[in-house]
């Protein structure tokens, strides 16, 4: 992983020219944490949000954008997706040594659409057709090279409990065997080379390259993102957490709702990755029953994030996902948090992303309308205090709508 870090450093230092401070003047501000403000200002300096409030003072050095009549909110966070890669999984079940970094393709239309749709923090993880799928990464949709896009190079290991060949017990046995193998290797190397270092050192202990990410996960340095398809999988994920002391993030599918009560009070990051209102057949009556997953999570007292999902709009638009949550009975505030603050927290960026708050990254959207109205377009997109997208200059939209639109 070292080469990635080096490259990232080189690229970041090359692009670190100080950005001009940016003042968004007079918009309706939705900070997500804290109350919404009518005709308020947002000041971004050195890539961070410096202030949110009424009548902020401007100086001649600042770039001032008049956003009266517009809505200002934090950029959306996609907390889990497998888009942006050529293939979500390698066709071998245990591949902890793979990295999404080697698969990301900045030229995929997905990233361009993210820029246009205001999804500025994207956790790209290996898919579910795996046992241990490799490590994921968190990127912004801006940059020609992957190094330029990086936010978090290594976001964690993807584990999937969805049985690949229909045999749950076999699937789990292979998963545990891989974890045990890495653990044994870690302990063996540590014992063998105990004199080489006082602290745990991968190089000094000669930990095999292909096992290093697993070792990091077992040492709690790397989160384990566990995809669960059913309630039984959630139970297994909790068992893995206890047995191997893993730092677990749960990615929940349609049939997990019976385990929601078990998540109560655990403070595990939870990402709802399936449908919001899946249907299932009642085994007794054969009748179709609709389960309202967001409502059930709320009733269980579980804070959760949502992500993109199959479907024409759900696949692209996080505002649509938020509106769908309102349809499921959540409040406006809860719905917006699920696509911003909760999503940022679930991927370990709770302090940096997801809200308009002093000190957080200046990832800000200027929208033409309220995010839940279904009418909103990103008019101006800002990442780290820089304007990265302007709808008026979007050649693709001009192509589709004509210059006048």
């Amino acid at each position: 992983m070292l080469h990635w870090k080096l490259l990232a450093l080189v690229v970041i230092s090359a692009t670190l020219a100080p950005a001009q401070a940016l003042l968004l003047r007079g918009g309706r501000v939705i900070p997500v944490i804290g109350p919404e403000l009518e005709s308020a200002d947002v000041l971004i300096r050195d890539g961070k949000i410096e202030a949110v409030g009424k009548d902020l003072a401007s100086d001649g050095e600042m770039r001032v954008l008049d956003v009266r009549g517009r809505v200002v909110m934090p950029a959306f966070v996609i907390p889990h997706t497998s888009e942006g890669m050529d293939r979500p999984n390698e066709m071998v079940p245990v591949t902890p040594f793979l990295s999404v970094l080697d698969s990301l393709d900045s030229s995929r239309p997905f990233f361009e659409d993210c820029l246009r749709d205001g999804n500025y923090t994207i956790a790209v993880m290996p898919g579910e057709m795996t046992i241990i799928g490799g490590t994921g990464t968190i990127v912004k949709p801006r940059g020609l090279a992957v190094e330029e896009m990086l936010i978090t190079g290594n976001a964690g290991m993807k584990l999937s409990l969805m049985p690949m060949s229909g045999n749950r017990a076999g699937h789990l046995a292979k998963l545990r065997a891989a974890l045990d193998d890495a653990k044994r290797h870690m302990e063996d190397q540590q014992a063998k080379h105990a004199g080489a270092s006082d602290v745990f050192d991968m190089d000094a202990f000669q930990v095999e390259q292909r096992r290093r990410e697993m070792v990091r996960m077992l040492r709690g340095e790397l989160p384990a993102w566990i995809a669960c398809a059913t309630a039984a999988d959630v139970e297994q994920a909790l068992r893995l957490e206890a047995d191997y002391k893993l730092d677990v993030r749960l990615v929940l599918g349609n049939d997990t709702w019976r385990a929601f009560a078990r998540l109560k009070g655990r403070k595990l990051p939870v990402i709802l990755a399936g449908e919001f209102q899946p249907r299932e057949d009642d085994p007794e009556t054969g009748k179709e029953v609709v389960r309202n997953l967001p409502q059930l999570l709320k009733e269980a007292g579980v804070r959760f994030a949502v992500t993109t999902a199959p479907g024409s709009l759900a696949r692209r638009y996080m505002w649509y996902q938020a509106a769908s949550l309102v349809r499921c009975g959540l409040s406006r505030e809860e719905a917006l948090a699920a696509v911003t603050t909760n999503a940022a927290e679930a991927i370990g960026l709770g302090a940096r992303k997801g809200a308009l708050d002093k000190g957080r990254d200046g990832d800000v959207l200027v929208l033409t309308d309220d995010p839940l109205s279904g009418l909103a377009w990103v008019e101006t997109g800002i990442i780290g205090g820089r304007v990265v997208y302007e709808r008026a200059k979007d050649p693709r939209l001009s192509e589709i709508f004509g210059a006048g639109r």
Partner: protein
Amino acid sequence: MRSCSVLVLVLSLLPLGAQTVYKVARAHIGNGESVAPAWVAVAGGRITAVSKEALSGEVTDCGSAEITAGLIDAWSSAGLRNAENENEEGSEVTPAMEPTVLYEPGRPEVLRRLQQGITSLCIHPGTRAVISGFAGVVSTDDASKAPRTPRGFLTIVLGLDPAAGNFRGGMNGFYARRPNSRMGVVYDVRSSFMKVADDLRTGRAIATEDLPLVEVLQGRLSVLWYTQTDKEIFTALRLAEELGIPRNICAGVVAVGSSAAELKARGVPVLLGSMNWPQYQVARRGRRGVADDGHAHQGHSHGAGLTAEVEARLRALAEAGMTHPIDTHEEALFDSGDDCCMAPGVDLDVSSAWKARAPVTTQARILAHAGVAAAFAGGTDLEGAQLIDYARLAVRDGLDPARALSMLTLEPARILGVAAHKGSLEAGKDADLVIWSGNPLRPDSEPRLVLVEGRVVFQKPVGKGG
């Protein structure tokens, strides 16, 4: 669901002649007008009045809810066991096939559509045959007494769908059969109609199964041409003129531009296709492409067909800071990924591929500008989306909200010939109604109550996990 059955019970106990009145914050009539607030009265399965003034009867106050006519999905295969592939495999020309008689309204996918507020469907046969059979309008409710129109339209499929899979094993393969190409598909249409025209001219007896073709030629039956792109629309219009087919509708349309003026000139309405279709799907030419003849072309230098114009656009994109760098964008354009689910063999040229990234909701605007009658249709992609989302996205794309709603109600009713009974909130029409939790065009609203012919067929329990 208990409250729902109680309500149904109450309704059925009402003395004959008494009317039920729904008071709502706004009634979207369907013809472009809206009334706010509104009282909508229902009796005997029909709408009896829509009024700004209070109406007497059994009044249900729906608060801030808004009402529309039941939505019409103008192109669907819900309720058919074989879903997308309801075809007789033995022949490419099966004009007498009637899939609507196989329609089962109790099936789960039909119930889901009902719960989305869809009260009528136009059921079509599969797209694997050329002259594929009859399409017709049905109700999504089991108990509907409305007469089905099983022989509403004759479906003719253009493009490469009927050729898909016919080339397995190559020319001499066991499975090889005609047609294999776009022109082969057109030949089947032409030869079938010419044979019937010849029979008519010479006074030969017409085969029973060819009778629908006669009805078409005599203008008693409309043709639903399955035409995904401009290319096939032009072919359909040319065939209609050449063969003397007076009544035509283009369905399944996902990429329309250059043919809009021609559609307008001939008064041919359009049923738009799935909005999923174009978004990440562009031409598959170049490296892994499929050309018109259905052969896979390997090893093309990708981007061989790039015009200077497209290249200039790419450059503009890069200058505007888009994430597609010039050198790899061609590949993104041509090889858009594994999730490409374009109909097998469908091939667009570079410039139309570019345009095809516009979702059908923006194409609604192209048609609206050109003055072409058009409706949205969900097709097969309603498992992950709502039909009403088509109108929502179209409004975001700049379509007039009233027109967007009418493209799911009155427009499809007119195009499908059922506007006398369906498609708008007008006295005398069937009481197919949807009461939404708020403005139906907002993505945070949903159907709370769906009525078919005055019966409550779905009521959404509010604020429950399940």
